[in-house]
């Protein structure tokens, strides 16, 4: 094989002269029927916001690791995970906007904390801020991505074609997130005494917010066939987490659950500052484009 440039062989058909621009991409939602199914429109929009806000708020938290991760490779890995989730958030908020007559940017930047419908697990500070560290981050990533993967997997059968398509794309992404978290959980738990103690502390911090992930909301129950009833995900998520914890030789945290409902807009006091930072440019310069 003789190639002048190592990347020539990576380019399909030689259309792109510059490999740095990649080899093209496909739109995951191309050709999907965007007709709104025969369900209560407010409910469907609320459900899209629930799943979209989970992804948006968590992507914002993961983005806080940019330039602060323990290693360069991990910096890129966490940023990639955040971008995957942000992409899912965009598609879901766009869908909610379609139904309500608004758009993704208005929903993302102009709603206040009480209007956000994410689970509280997504919004808490797990590091690099004062609320945690890399171990806490991995603990939350493990729980969140295991739960979201099970949810999206079930959602691929949704009667709403857009939700089914978003879920089908998301499953491939979140499968990798869950693997990444599990690999790190094993290494931290099996590393030094210090890394093991940080992993355990991280799990203890996020565990009180897990019951909320499986508590069905009236909107989800009314949208049977379109939405996923999260209580049906519990056994799958528990079995995956038990497998990882078992391999890592970690016990299930023995901590009480924290009552509360992010799905109803009742959030911790950590969401406000997060949104303030996320929204400040858009709010300071309304209607700005670049």
């Amino acid at each position, binding site marked *: 094989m003789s190639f002048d440039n190592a990347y020539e*062989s*990576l380019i*399909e058909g030689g259309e792109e002269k510059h490999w740095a621009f*990649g080899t093209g991409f496909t739109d995951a939602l191309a050709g999907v029927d965007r007709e709104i199914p025969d369900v209560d429109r407010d409910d469907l929009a609320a459900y899209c916001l629930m799943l979209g806000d989970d992804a948006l708020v968590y992507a914002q938290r993961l983005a806080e690791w940019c330039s602060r991760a323990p290693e360069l490779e991990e910096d890129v*890995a966490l940023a*990639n995970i955040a971008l995957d989730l942000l992409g899912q958030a965009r598609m879901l908020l766009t869908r909610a906007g379609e139904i309500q007559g608004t758009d993704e940017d208005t929903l993302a930047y102009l709603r206040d904390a009480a209007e956000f419908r994410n689970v509280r697990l997504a919004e808490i500070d797990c590091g690099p801020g004062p609320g945690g560290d890399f171990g806490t981050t991995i603990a939350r990533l493990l729980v969140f991505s295991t739960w979201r993967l099970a949810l999206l997997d079930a959602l691929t059968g949704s009667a709403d074609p857009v939700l089914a398509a978003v879920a089908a794309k998301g499953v491939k992404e979140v499968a990798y997130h869950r693997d990444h978290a599990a*690999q790190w959980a094993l*290494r931290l738990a099996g*590393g030094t005494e210090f890394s093991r103690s940080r992993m355990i502390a991280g799990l203890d911090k996020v565990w009180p917010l897990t019951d909320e992930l499986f508590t069905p909301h009236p909107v989800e129950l009314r949208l049977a066939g379109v939405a996923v009833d999260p209580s049906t995900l519990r056994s799958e998520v528990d079995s995956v987490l038990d497998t990882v914890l078992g391999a890592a030789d970690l016990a299930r945290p023995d901590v009480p659950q924290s009552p509360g409902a992010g799905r109803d807009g009742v959030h911790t006091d950590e969401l406000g500052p997060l949104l303030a930072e996320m929204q400040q440019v858009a709010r300071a310069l309304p209607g700005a484009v670049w």
Partner: protein
Amino acid sequence: MTRSSWPLYEVFVRGKRGLNHVHVGSLHAPDDEMAVRNARDLYTRRNEGVSIWVVRADAITASSPDEKDPFFAPAGDKVYRHPTFYDIPQDVPHL
């Protein structure tokens, strides 16, 4: 593992239409399994490939630049090693 003790890995990626893995760069990782994942995160972001090989850099034996002349110069002046005396048909792409 401390910051300084992650070993170096060389990364090879094969594209969808490629027939072989191509060296695309290097990275640090705590072990082989994480090296493959780090390579996926760093070197396949723009759909560059469908297969990744990672090799620990210290497992690679390389020729020394000092020995360039004895190693490679003798191959430059032996015309009998090149099959230039055959006619290759136009429609044979990979030869």
